[in-house]
């Protein structure tokens, strides 16, 4: 016996007026981005506030005239006797937009805060959809698997952009303001602004993709966040220890050890964007790292393609197996 429900004409004649795929994907991403700023995400909001307070400290420090902007030439003479002029003594460029991405203990950067934020933001992004199986519902919509991955990438990427490129641009704007908002400052520093943007996009995209990969791999939010954090810092510490040992023994090719550390790879590319030589502290001396652009590009491509391919494969597997 088929019973008919009482349904209004409006329900029967409803026209959904569906939009196009790019708008669906952007909408999915942006709505998730907005959710980050909910009062439920206290830790995330706290980290963003700390990053902006740190940016403010940078501004104050630079405005006081104690540092040059954007770069200053430094050396490591403090570590040696006054008359020492051996090979361990080096001069290197220290640039504020690059220092900003470094570690707190090596020049006052905010890397640990960015990595923490990326870990928290990306941890449950795909894993949650896989655990509660809502992934199937998303993929039954007029979007492809790649669209879904882009939609999950967008919120993390935008959030990280907000704490990478934006604060760096704020510092640059503050310096421009200090200089009396002269038009010449913009023309003189046009490449600086472009580089800050490119560098911010690069760091944000890279951390987002790696974070999402851990989310897909481990599924459970806390596990994925923790593993991502350990991966970034763990590989960095291991690489630096081996680098120092190999340098101490004067072994050729020690620089390549740094390629196992994702944060060093990102830093090397970042320094290349600013066309500045990359140094890594080992022992008393900052050692110049000399790795070719092709080699660096290849490593990054492998990491990037590997992460994207892995995420796609995991989703494909889940669909096939329900």
């Amino acid at each position, binding site marked *: 016996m088929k019973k008919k429900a009482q349904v209004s004409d409006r329900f029967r004649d409803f026209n959904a007026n569906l939009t196009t795929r790019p708008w669906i994907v952007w909408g999915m991403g942006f709505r998730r981005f907005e959710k980050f700023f909910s009062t439920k995400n206290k830790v995330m909001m706290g980290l963003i506030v700390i990053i902006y307070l740190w940016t403010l400290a940078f501004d104050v420090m630079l405005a006081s005239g104690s540092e040059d902007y954007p770069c200053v030439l430094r050396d490591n003479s403090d570590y040696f006797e006054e008359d020492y002029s051996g090979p361990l003594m080096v001069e290197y460029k220290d640039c504020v937009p690059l220092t900003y991405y470094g570690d707190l203990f090596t020049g006052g950067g905010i890397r640990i805060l960015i990595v923490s934020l990326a870990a928290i933001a990306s941890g449950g992004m795909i894993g949650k959809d896989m655990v509660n199986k809502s992934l199937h519902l998303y993929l*039954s919509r007029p979007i492809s698997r790649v669209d879904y991955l882009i939609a999950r990438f967008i919120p993390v990427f935008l959030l990280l952009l907000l704490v990478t490129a934006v604060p760096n641009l704020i510092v640059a704007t503050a310096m421009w303001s200090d200089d009396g908002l002269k038009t010449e400052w913009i023309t003189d520093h046009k490449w600086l602004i472009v580089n800050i943007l490119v560098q911010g996009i690069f760091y944000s995209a890279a951390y987002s993709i790696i974070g999402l990969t851990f989310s897909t791999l481990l599924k459970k939010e806390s596990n994925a966040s923790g593993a991502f954090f350990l991966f970034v810092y763990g590989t960095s510490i291991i690489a630096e220890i081996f680098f120092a040992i190999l340098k101490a023994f004067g072994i050729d090719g020690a620089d390549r050890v740094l390629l196992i550390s994702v944060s060093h790879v990102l830093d090397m590319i970042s320094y290349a964007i600013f066309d500045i030589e990359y140094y890594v502290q080992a022992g008393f001396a900052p050692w110049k790292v000399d790795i070719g652009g092709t080699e660096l590009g290849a490593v990054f491509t492998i990491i990037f393609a590997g992460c994207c391919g892995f995420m796609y494969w995991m989703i494909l597997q889940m669909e096939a197996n329900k």
Partner: protein
Amino acid sequence: MIALIKATNVTKKYGGLKALDDFSVDIPEGKIGVLGPNGAGKSTFVKIALGLLTATSGEITVLGEKLTKNTTSIRKRIGYMPEHDCVPDEMTGVEFLIEMGMVSGMSLAGATERTHEILGHLRMGEEKYRLIGEYSGGMRQKVKLAQGLIHAPELIFLDEPTSGLDPNARREMLETINGLTDVSNTKVLLSTHILQDVEMVCDTVIIVKDGKLQMHENVEKIVGEKSNFIQVRIGGPVEDFISELKKKKITAEDDGRVLIIPYKDDSTYNQIIDATVKSNCLLYEMERTTQSMDSVYQEIIE
């Protein structure tokens, strides 16, 4: 008339296992039941028709559109209610449906309006503002159905929609499916292993076993044919009784427990009584069969 779904020699392999084996079917418009035991290949067929899985070989057309590799545009015209529980606990019913509407491509205003309307029809009151994690099994199924209909699709795939529901909730769900899809003219493809679900909702049934199409028939025809039998239970020499019936040009089929005799008209009852008397048998029971599709299904599956 355009076929709802047309599959031509579709094969789907998972490693060495063939989930669909040279599967061909031409499904007309209406409400279609895909019936088969667990592991028969029903869900695989639904997923291929939805573009979620790619067939190893063969061709499939849905709503007149050829389905090539993971076609996404066709999904604007299709709704999907998966078998397993897949609704997020941490969202309210309203939030979830609005999100699903927008992921389908609807505007916020359109999705909100449609969400409240559809949940109203599903008789969900204030509970729609509660977290889905607090919902009963029946309410979760309703939300799952609602998300499939949110964007007013032309066709909805329902994969085991009554799975895990108690009899009352099951009946309510089937009535809701009927009601909502009838008035909105939504075509239905219902994949299930429960015969009664197909009888209650569908016009046409296809029976699948081991990835192969076993039967494609109109539900009313099957039910009608099967109700045109008389079930007879007798004591005594059964063979003599069957011979007496043969003389009257009536065939009787012994299923081990009862005799199944085709019903022509009310005179068949008198002929059976006459044959019982002539064969010295005792007539214990005689009734028009109320069997539905069970016997057809059992014959095919076994």
